[in-house]
């Protein structure tokens, strides 16, 4: 295209392993990533729900944010770095427990979501005052630039571009991980712990993007291939591509940034208002607070909902949503076929009056109005381990 330079695609340290496993590689967020392996999306999806799937998510951005105002290792230091990040996100970070993590969002001054991210407070006493942050691949440069410009000298941002990220998801994940990192199986949902493995420091977080129990493991680049091979050596573990990652997260009702969330959409509209902490609702003090607090009080104009088409035809991103009487009320933001559901599923935004579960809708697919209805999310129940 004119005026657009073709940049060479980046690769993760597992590129060679993906090729040796027969992956079909595609461009994603500037990276060459596996979209599927020879088993294909459907089998990979079902395997993850039945056993365990291994995902390379090393394209995501990892960083450490550290206070410069207090000595590391004190509650005061945690309070300071937490207060700093709380100027960008609406979450309760100050009261996060040691070793605990939160899903949160970076907000624009207008209250739109600039990205969604994970923020983790280290477990170790000596590391208090530092936060471990994981952001989306496509947004990482912008996110890190925003943190640096808004937080200035108050914090130091260290981008961990020497670390890879793996996700192991599914009912077998905990057993597989615990055999390699003893103790990890006892971690509860949304906690992180450090482990030593073959001389490398790994961070294992009990979280994921499939709705299944599982882990995301941050591994130094020079150890990640050996660690991935160790996981794949278990008979329950199969490599899973981005295709199944997308169908799994859709069934789990989880947002994909740039599709279900963007800089115009508020967390209230996105039906992720759980990211706004109780104290933050009382105090405000986050970007876009006036809009967001107003939407919390009065309800947003539109809302993200789960949508179940009645027939078999998938309704994909961009499909117009109409009321039962044919009025345009919104658009599908993620849609496709749910292998575990065994039929089409979607998420999209509708005007608030049409957001109640059970509301009849029409989806305009290839010029035809297909009947659908608003349903509760997720489509497949979450199986997080809460101890």
């Amino acid at each position, binding site marked *: 295209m004119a005026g657009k330079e073709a940049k060479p695609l980046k690769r993760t340290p597992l590129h060679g392993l993906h090729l040796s496993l027969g992956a079909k590689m595609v461009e994603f967020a500037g990276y060459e990533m596996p*979209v*599927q392996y020879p088993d*294909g*999306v*459907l*089998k990979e*999806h079902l395997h993850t729900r039945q056993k365990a799937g291994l995902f390379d998510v090393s394209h995501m951005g990892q960083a450490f944010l550290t206070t410069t105002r207090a000595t590391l290792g004190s509650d005061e230091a945690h309070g300071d770095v937490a207060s700093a990040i709380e100027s960008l996100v609406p979450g309760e970070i100050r009261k996060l427990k040691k070793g605990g993590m939160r899903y949160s969002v970076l907000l624009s001054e207008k209250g739109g979501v600039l990205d969604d991210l994970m923020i983790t407070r280290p477990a170790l006493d000596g590391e208090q005052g530092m936060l471990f942050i994981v952001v989306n691949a496509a947004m990482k440069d912008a996110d890190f630039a925003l943190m640096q410009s808004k937080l200035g000298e108050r914090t130091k941002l260290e981008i961990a571009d020497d670390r890879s990220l793996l996700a192991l998801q599914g009912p077998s994940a905990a057993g597989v991980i615990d055999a390699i990192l003893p103790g990890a199986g006892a971690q509860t949902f949304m906690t992180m712990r450090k482990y030593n493995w073959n001389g490398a420091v790994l961070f294992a977080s009990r979280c994921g993007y499939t709705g299944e129990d599982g882990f995301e493991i941050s591994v130094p680049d020079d150890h990640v291939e050996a660690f991935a091979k160790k996981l794949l050596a278990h008979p329950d573990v199969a490599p899973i591509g981005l*295709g*199944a990652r997308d*169908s799994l997260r859709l069934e789990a009702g989880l947002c994909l940034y740039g599709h279900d969330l963007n800089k115009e959409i508020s967390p209230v509209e996105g039906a992720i208002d759980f990211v706004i902490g109780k104290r933050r609702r009382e105090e405000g003090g986050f970007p876009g607070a006036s809009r967001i607090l107003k939407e919390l009080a009065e309800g947003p104009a539109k809302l993200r909902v789960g949508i179940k088409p009645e027939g*078999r*035809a*998938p309704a*994909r991103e961009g499909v117009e949503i109409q009321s039962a009487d044919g009025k345009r009320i919104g658009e599908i933001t993620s849609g*496709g*076929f749910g*292998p575990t559901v065994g039929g*089409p599923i979607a998420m999209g935004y509708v005007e608030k009056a049409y957001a109640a579960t059970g509301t009849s809708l029409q989806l305009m697919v*290839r010029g035809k109005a297909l009947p659908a209805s608003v349903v509760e999310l997720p489509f497949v129940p979450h199986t997080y381990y809460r101890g």
Partner: protein
Amino acid sequence: MTVKYTKEHEWVRVEGGVAVIGITEHAAGALGDIVFVELPEAGKAFKQNGEMAVVESVKAASDVYAPVTGEVVEANGSIVDDPASVNADPEGAAWFVKMKLANPSELDAMMDKAAYDAFVETL
């Protein structure tokens, strides 16, 4: 019996003035697991290269084009009921439609099996 192929990865097999039409093994493999098929009803007429059917995999929707001009005389309802059969036997039992050929000479410009296989090699 002659089978002809298009660059859009459809195949056409003429049986007594009626063209049986489907998608190739290569197309089915590239699409991946097919989860939905939409076919035209009998009686519907298409021009060559007109959008005739839709196949959807978990990943994406794809149009299937009419490789010849003509009128649909029969649609294969069994692939609508069992879309996965298109992956299993795309050039056999999982045909899409039968069409009455309006212009049999359209077949002349299409590839034979050897030419199509060579074309796929270049992709």
